[in-house]
């Protein structure tokens, strides 16, 4: 069994990320994106990508990155989830970067790793490994496309898949359920350059989506942890019927059940990150388990947070809605729980018929 704990280095990274987010993101900034999608949130990404070097976290040192593994990336994503941070780490530094690494795109990797340029894999945000199709002229809804300047577009010509790098595209913003991860439709406008073809192109895209799914689980864990902790604190201080509502047994038991779910989600997310980092043959199983489980836990945690906050949870001014929107969007992103369970059935030889 692999190491499911956090190393000292990982905890130190967490602390840096948390500090940077504390300085650059707050709930009111995130909420502002709903009314003004062009609200300037660049300080957050600058702090993470530039100051902390996270844009190149997964890029080997010889390609200009930090040479860290999926384990470290998962810790970053836990913190991003906790803060519903509006930064394209998952989209650019994990998914697109994994594709670029798979095809060893030596010219652009250093630019991406330094944070100078941002890459995006141009597929609908609901795509998952083994279940995507190449070749639409306009692709939507794509996450991480707004502000990107390297567009990795899977195309299909005469049945052969190619991964094409474009540097310009028409990017039209869409109104998103989760405006902290704005979606867009994307149509490339330059001729592009083929990075890989055939099996290599398919493998690069699958690897990118698999890494995204594996690590999205950690973002979901962060969302769920924030919801649990915030609700526990609220339950300790909110008085109704002359008692803190957290002294009512029905609420206590629901929070205990939620704690258990979050504990299980944490183990699942850690296992997915560790097997991805180690290129363990169990990684596909770990990813399907983590995605199908953590997706629902994050949604459940956000829904319980809203309900147990009562009326205040329904208001725009309280932050819980930002987490609900992220959690629900994350559940749909990179494959729904049911889709991942269907994948899992194939992996562990439990056929439907």
């Amino acid at each position, binding site marked *: 069994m692999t190491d499911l704990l956090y190393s000292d280095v990982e905890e130190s990274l967490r602390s840096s990320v948390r500090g940077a987010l504390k300085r650059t993101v707050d709930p009111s900034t995130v909420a502002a994106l709903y009314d003004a999608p062009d609200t300037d949130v660049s300080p957050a990404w600058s702090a993470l990508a530039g100051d902390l070097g996270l844009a190149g976290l997964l890029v080997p040192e010889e390609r200009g990155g930090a040479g860290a593994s999926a384990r470290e990336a998962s810790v970053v994503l836990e913190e991003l989830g906790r803060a519903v941070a509006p930064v394209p780490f998952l989209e650019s530094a994990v998914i697109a970067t994994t594709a670029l690494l798979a095809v060893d795109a030596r010219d652009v990797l250093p630019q991406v790793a330094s944070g100078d340029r941002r890459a995006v894999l141009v597929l609908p945000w609901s795509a998952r490994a083994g279940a995507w199709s190449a070749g639409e002229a306009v692709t939507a809804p794509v996450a991480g496309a707004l502000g990107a300047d390297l567009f990795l577009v899977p195309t299909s010509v005469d049945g052969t898949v190619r991964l094409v790098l474009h540097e310009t595209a028409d990017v039209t913003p869409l109104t998103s359920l989760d405006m902290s991860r704005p979606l867009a439709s994307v149509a490339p406008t330059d001729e592009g350059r083929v990075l890989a073809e055939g099996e290599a192109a398919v493998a690069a895209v699958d690897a990118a989506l698999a890494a995204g799914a594996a690590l999205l689980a950690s973002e979901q864990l962060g969302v769920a942890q924030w919801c649990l902790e915030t609700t526990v604190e609220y339950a300790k201080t909110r008085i109704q019927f002359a008692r803190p509502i957290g002294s009512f047994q029905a609420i206590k038991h629901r929070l205990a059940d939620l704690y258990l779910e979050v504990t299980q989600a944490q183990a699942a997310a850690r296992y997915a990150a560790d097997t991805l980092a180690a290129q363990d043959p169990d990684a596909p199983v770990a990813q399907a388990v983590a995605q199908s489980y953590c997706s629902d836990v994050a949604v459940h945690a956000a829904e319980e947070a809203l309900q147990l906050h009562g009326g205040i949870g329904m208001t725009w001014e309280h932050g819980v809605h930002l987490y609900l929107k992220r959690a629900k969007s994350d559940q749909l*992103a990179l494959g729904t729980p049911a889709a991942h369970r269907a994948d899992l059935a194939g992996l562990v030889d439990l056929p439907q018929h």
Partner: protein
Amino acid sequence: MTDVRAEVAALLARFDLQTVDPVEFLGARFDAGLAWVHFPVGRGGLGRPRDEQQVVEQLLAEAGAPAPDLGLNSIGLGMAAPTLIAFGTPEQQDRYLRPLFTCEEIWCQLFSEPGAGSDLAGVATRAVLDGDTWVVNGQKVWTSGAQNAQRAILVARTDPTVVKHAGLSYFVVDMSDPGVDVRPLRQITGEAEFNEVFLNDVRVPDADRVGAVGAGWRVATTTLNNERVAIGSGADREAGQIGIVTERWRRDPSVRSAAEHDRLMSWWVETEVTRLAGERLRQQLAMGQPGPESSAMKLAFAKQAQQVSGFALELDPDAGLQYDDWTMVRTGSASFLGRGPGFRYLRAKGNSIEGGTSEIMRNVVSERVLGLPADHRPDKGVPFNEVAR
């Protein structure tokens, strides 16, 4: 013995429904005792059995007669009117019921407070008697339609030195009082369907007190029982959120999957048994009064609306990831089934909070239906101003 059918016919005979002014017609309907036939004569009614109202409604609807705006004046029609008839003075009934029914006066409700949500009897808004006028100060919340309302029903604390339920009184408030400050309260959907209402030295004549001083809790309970019944009204098969999902499933094979099919059918069954249980409860109550059993129905409706609207997003992820419009708008009434799937999902979250949380509904069912013992209440027997808050 009066036949309501004849009364309706007589009313209809007096107007050309193509041209009639709705206010004029509704006023005449009120005067004819056809507003609420079970109310007393002269107060919009004829002193008839409650179930004859259905006959009136049906006949008037068939004739295409103007009807009161249930969306705009739901508080007035559904909650203030039955409360006024039960507890109001003759003068209050004379003054308020007719314009309420014609919708010349829209009503809103000033009950909930930031610190008194589930614990509704914990209201801190104070009303202090100054001569024959009450001076009211405090903050209310979750007031729908306050921006359109001329009148409000208010629960305020008139005696903080007695236990919390005993120190409340119930008033009718004129919303044009300069001390009333209405501010929109934006919800997670982006809309502002509700308001916060700040009350600063609002002056209410003692003549607008409903029920005795200190009897406010009992009066408010009548109001709220009417609210909960209203929530559990009848429905056709596949009504509500499930209908939106089944329509899509039938129309669009691309959303079908084996993995989701049994979940779909489970929600179909849940919705159907709830519809049947609601129908059965209505049959039981046809002659009787609303009881605590309807709280269980509210639980079921909220659960299904939330789960099914969430399931709908999973059926079509690319659509679910998007939203129709975050622009802040003020609305006068709730919309559960309109707009996009994301709106429906978010709005449904309120179903288990507004009108009594699901936690409170479970308390009601367990104590008042099943007879289980009450939980510990540290404020029992303690004066309101000595209780921790």
